């Protein structure tokens, strides 16, 4: 059981958006580091097996930002070397690095987010705002695989009939346009059946009431409240300029006033909330599992 998945999608969505927004709009080494640490630990806690692909792409992005900015931005005071009369500066590298780490953390956040927010949950969240849009989305999600499958089928049929030539580029383009026109006919013909089926089940008889698989439990309210409180502090810090940081011409000092520190702490907690939830859940399960195996429930013996 992955506990974050069982929270109400709306609460998860709320937490995610707030955290991502703060992380993305503050270009600050501390924020970047916190965001990176939080997102990476969440990813590592949740993953069932090592996913090298995502770490490689995160690394490439971070390194890419660092190098690109380092070599193409010539701001900054500390010149490391000069190439073709262009100064390469330490500040430019550091700016690139902070941007890159932020970007990498956003990749990690989104990766976990897309894993948690299945289409059901996105539709549920969207449905809170616009039930019609949610219905259109779910219908599209049904239609797309159907349409792609059909396109393949028609393409294969045309090929296997052996009437059409596909040896030259012109004939191939003709083939594609033929499949396309058949797809249009197919879609328009069959949409009638769908609309009949909707009418037959009372669609259009009035406002729909959206069913949700997800209930809103006290812990969802708690998650949202905590998120709201912590992010409020972070926003105030942002607004007050505590998180401001300059890279050029020289790196500015990291603000270590009480306001900034509390802002950092709050944002840090915000970043680690999901990891706490998941990690705590793991521990609880380990504990429960030992109990389950000791108990004499016949089911547990299987």
């Amino acid at each position, binding site marked *: 059981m992955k506990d974050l998945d069982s929270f109400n999608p709306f609460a998860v969505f709320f937490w995610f958006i707030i955290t991502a927004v703060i992380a993305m709009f503050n270009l600050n080494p501390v924020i970047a580091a916190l965001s990176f640490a939080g997102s990476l630990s969440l990813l590592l806690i949740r993953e069932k097996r090592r996913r090298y692909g995502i770490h490689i792409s995160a690394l490439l992005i971070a390194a890419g930002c660092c190098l690109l900015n380092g070599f193409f931005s010539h701001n900054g005071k500390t010149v490391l070397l000069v190439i073709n009369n262009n100064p390469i500066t330490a500040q430019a590298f550091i700016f690139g690095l902070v941007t890159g780490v932020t970007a990498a953390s956003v990749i990690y956040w989104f990766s976990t987010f897309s894993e948690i927010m299945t*289409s*059901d949950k996105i*539709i549920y969240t969207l449905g809170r705002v616009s039930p019609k849009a949610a*219905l259109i989305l*779910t*219908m599209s*999600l*049904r239609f797309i*695989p*159907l349409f792609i*499958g*059909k396109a393949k*089928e*028609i393409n*294969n*049929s*045309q*090929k*296997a*009939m*052996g*009437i*059409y*030539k*596909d*040896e030259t580029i012109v004939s191939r383009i003709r083939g594609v346009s*033929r*499949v396309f*026109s*058949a797809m249009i*006919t*197919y879609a328009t*013909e*069959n*949409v009638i*059946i*769908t609309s*009949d*089926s*909707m*009418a*037959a*089940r*009372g*669609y*259009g*008889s*009035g*406002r*729909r*009431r*959206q*069913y*949700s*698989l997800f209930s809103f439990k006290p812990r969802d309210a708690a998650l949202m409240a905590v998120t709201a409180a912590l992010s409020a502090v972070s926003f105030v810090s942002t607004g007050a300029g505590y998180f401001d940081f300059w890279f050029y011409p020289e790196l500015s000092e990291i603000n270590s006033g009480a306001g900034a520190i509390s802002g950092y702490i709050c944002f840090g907690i915000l970043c680690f909330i999901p990891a706490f939830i998941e990690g705590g859940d793991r521990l609880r399960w380990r504990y429960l599992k030992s109990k389950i195996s000791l108990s004499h429930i016949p089911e547990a013996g299987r």
Partner: protein
Amino acid sequence: MALFEVKNLSFSYPGSGKITDCVSFEIEQGDFVILCGPTGSGKTTLLRLLKPELEPKGELTGEVLYKGQNLRELDASESVKIGFVNQSADHQTVTDKVWHEIVFGMENLRYTQSQMSRRLAEISGYFGISRLFDKNISELSGGMKQTVALAGVLAMDPEVIILDEPTSQLDPVAAGEFLASLKKLNDEQGITIIITEHRLENVIPLGNKLGILENGRLTHFGAVSQTAAQIRPDEIMFEAMPGSVKLFSLAPNGGECPLNVKQGKRFLRESGLDKRLIRDTAGSEKSKNESTGTALKIKDLCFRYSKDEPDALHFASLEVKKGEIMCVLGENGSGKSTLLYAVSGLITPYSGKVEIFGKNIKKYSGQSLHDNCVAMLPQNAQSVFVKSTLRDELAEVGADFDIIPYDLGYAAETHPYDLSGGEMQLAALAKVLAAKPRLLLLDEPTKGLDARAKRIVCDVLTQLKNRGVTILAVTHDTEFAAMCADRAAMFFRGAVIAVDEPRGFFSQNIFYTTCINKIVSDTDPRLITFDDVKNRLGGED
């Protein structure tokens, strides 16, 4: 008071003749009504006239009463008590997930959350589909898709469910399961069922009323066994009747008309028909096909769709002689269609050899495999068409209407999608024949066809064979194979496990054989079609 009272109902589309012609009948609560009729007899129109939201636009006289109230006066919450399921599993689903499809109707009727949750739980439990709850509908099999569509209708607590050929796109096993679930709903929940079907063998034993439509007229309507017994051999629908009903017509003894194999066997004994069928069959006919040469040779073919899946073809071998019709029979997912894909060059097997007219398929470069050589008619005939009339369709590929031994000229200006199942199959065949193939591959050529269309397709194929075309068809239609195959092969787990001429093939099968054969196999297993039985009896006079 009857549930449905249909009084002198006539209907015509603007500018056409009567589709429904002065139809009257009554349906009681708890009935299981089977409506059948040849394609184009107005079955679908009649069903749609029973469901207010789906009423076709046109000229209507007479009336339909639902529990004594005119159908048109029902409000939305009453008219959803009439559920409707049609044949296209893919297109009648609205949403992407199983659970969402089931609640869709309840959402429209503004049920409360707790009502919906409870109903969802009940329905999932009833159909045993809790495991599929979160699944995408597109991942399900055709049979499961239809079950989900039925569940979506059932969620609204209908009193009657109308089904328009719900199993025509399903394989026999899935069709049987779906019909069994309808029977269960009828028996255990008392839900009235009104169903049209063309594969009558499975459905007729389930119903209690049978109606037969011909050209919009209801020619018969009444209790199933009486009605079935009344159908004369010269009527169009006779051909579609189950084997037991056909046998009954040979010796109507005034008793109850047998509807399934069990009753058929009893009838055979009691009527004495079995004695008349016994004949010395030593020296039975040899296969007439003494053709020379091999059209297709498949040797130890292996193929899989992805690395982690089991082989779809596993050392499959088969030889097809020139000028014969070979039918490959087997259950769904046994890899039959994959075999055709391999022969038509759509897929490349990872080992094994395909030889077409003595030449390895790999040696055919580019188009040469298809020029005057191999062509495949796909399972879904709709996917063949790209133009807006049949005439354009054939003109585009340079074919003419007389390319097939059947006259389709009357449908020249019709949109291919508007053709009936049988016409569409033949039209697709005409298009495929434009490449003048010597080896014709057919994937489920009788899917969704009624008995008459099946017979026509069969005749057309036989005539093509006489013109020298070799035909390889995969099908699960045993009746079709018994009617027109020169040899039949059994496909199982990716390989051909038995090949024989049909008489030998079916006489040795117990389960995988025709309905007639199941009934008369105790008497003589070599009788596989109704015509065989008739000829045997005819011979005695």
